[in-house]
């Protein structure tokens, strides 16, 4: 990896257990700053599980246990002194299915800044909401209907609303778990375009089952298989001449 790249997050020997079963078998992975890192691999290989380690979402899963170390700017996010709510504002998440709250567009975005006390006044809050919607590429489509229900938007718009909601709390890292799998090609293209814009200011990690999407949006790609990290490298190398047979078989559609 380019030594000038700053490592924003770093996982070392990360293992995850559900009940007593080991699901991730000691993952070592660096996430470079202001880059998009794609996690690929067949269903059930542990991509989402690893992604959830990066903002301690696994804490919310009954019976889940994480060992090893994950650093955010050199600090261990599993340290007992870490405030998990604060961590999740620094490391935001966008899910597979757009999941706006059953509230207005405005309230969806306002929720985070309110609970984190990011706005001093109503004007301040309006500004944060406009900026977040702008960055998510949604503002111009919704500016006249900010008080309509978030769920009244199209699927693609809802996903961009969820991205705006994640951005509103000024995260440093954005995790996306198959953010386009419920969207049509045009809505997908808009999200991909957005991801490319966002990486200027954020570090992005995206789980995707679309090889083409990983090839289009990411600069680094990590290939998982059965709870192991098979290979990580520049996206260019992984998709033109990967080093590992399992990666080759997976990306060329020869698996199993």
């Amino acid at each position: 990896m380019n030594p000038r790249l700053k490592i924003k997050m770093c996982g070392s020997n990360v293992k995850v257990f559900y009940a007593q079963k080991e699901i991730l078998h000691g993952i070592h992975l660096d996430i470079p700053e202001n880059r998009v890192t794609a996690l690929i691999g067949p269903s059930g290989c542990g991509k989402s599980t690893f992604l959830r380690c990066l903002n301690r979402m696994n804490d919310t899963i009954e019976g889940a246990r994480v060992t090893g170390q994950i650093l955010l700017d050199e600090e261990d996010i599993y340290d007992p002194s870490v405030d998990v709510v604060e961590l999740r504002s620094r490391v935001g998440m966008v899910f597979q299915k757009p999941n706006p709250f059953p509230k207005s567009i405005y309230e969806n975005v306002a929720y985070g800044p309110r609970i984190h006390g990011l706005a001093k006044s109503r004007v301040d809050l309006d500004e944060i909401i406009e900026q977040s919607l702008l960055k998510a590429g949604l503002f111009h489509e919704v500016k006249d209907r900010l008080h309509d229900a978030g769920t009244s938007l199209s699927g693609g718009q809802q996903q961009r609303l969820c991205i705006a909601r994640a951005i509103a709390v000024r995260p440093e890292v954005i995790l996306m778990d198959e953010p386009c799998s419920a969207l049509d090609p045009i809505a997908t293209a808009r999200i991909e375009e957005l991801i490319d814009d966002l990486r200027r200011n954020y570090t992005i990690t995206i789980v995707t089952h679309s090889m083409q999407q990983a090839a289009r949006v990411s600069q680094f790609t990590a290939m998982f298989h059965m709870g192991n990290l098979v290979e990580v490298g520049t996206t260019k190398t992984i998709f033109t001449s990967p080093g590992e047979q399992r990666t080759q078989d997976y990306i060329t559609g020869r698996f199993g």
Partner: protein
Amino acid sequence: MLTQHTVRSFDRELDYLAKKIAEMGDHACSIVERSVKAIVQDDYRLADELIAEDVILDKAEREIDEKAILVIARRQPMAVDLREIIGTIRISSDLERVGDMGKNIAKRAAVIAGTRQPSSFYSSLEAFVALALRQLNEVLDAYAKHSLDRINAVRERDGTIDAMYTSLFRELLTYMVKDSHNITACTHLLFCTKNIERIGDHATNIAETAHYVITGSYPLLERPKGDHTYEVGMRKEVS
């Protein structure tokens, strides 16, 4: 060897492209072989036939291009599959050029019909074309079997072709010096030998493409060079 794709029809499409390349290779070799035969046996009828046959390779190249583009659009191939399809497009273009070389030799054969050189020249010419075509056949077969060692060996042997070319070049110059009425025929023969030398270069190109398809990287650029014709006629030839 690679295992099969989950989508079997993808394998069939790739097999089809591989088969087309093999056919193009056979045809290109056959045109070149017969074009030299037309010279050696002074057979202008054969030469005329060959000139018309070149179209078959042009068509085959187009068909491969169209099919390859369709596969890319349909399958969005990655890694070795992507390299293989791009390799197919490149190799078919090399083979089409080889066909052009054959056609050009055939045209010259028709023009110089009725002229003769010493018989030793024709045996050298036959040995020369046999060597170039052996290189071409070998690289195509090695590519079909993904045999990297054999592919690299083809590249290393290109120097032999260049050396033979230099020797034929000198021989033709000697004939021209001896008999100025022979200059036109010998000049055509000079271009024919140059064409055969170019076929060797196409075999080398194909070896490089094949290396890339199989490994994902190109071979090193340096390789032995035996073409010294640019030195022929210099006041003091560099040995």
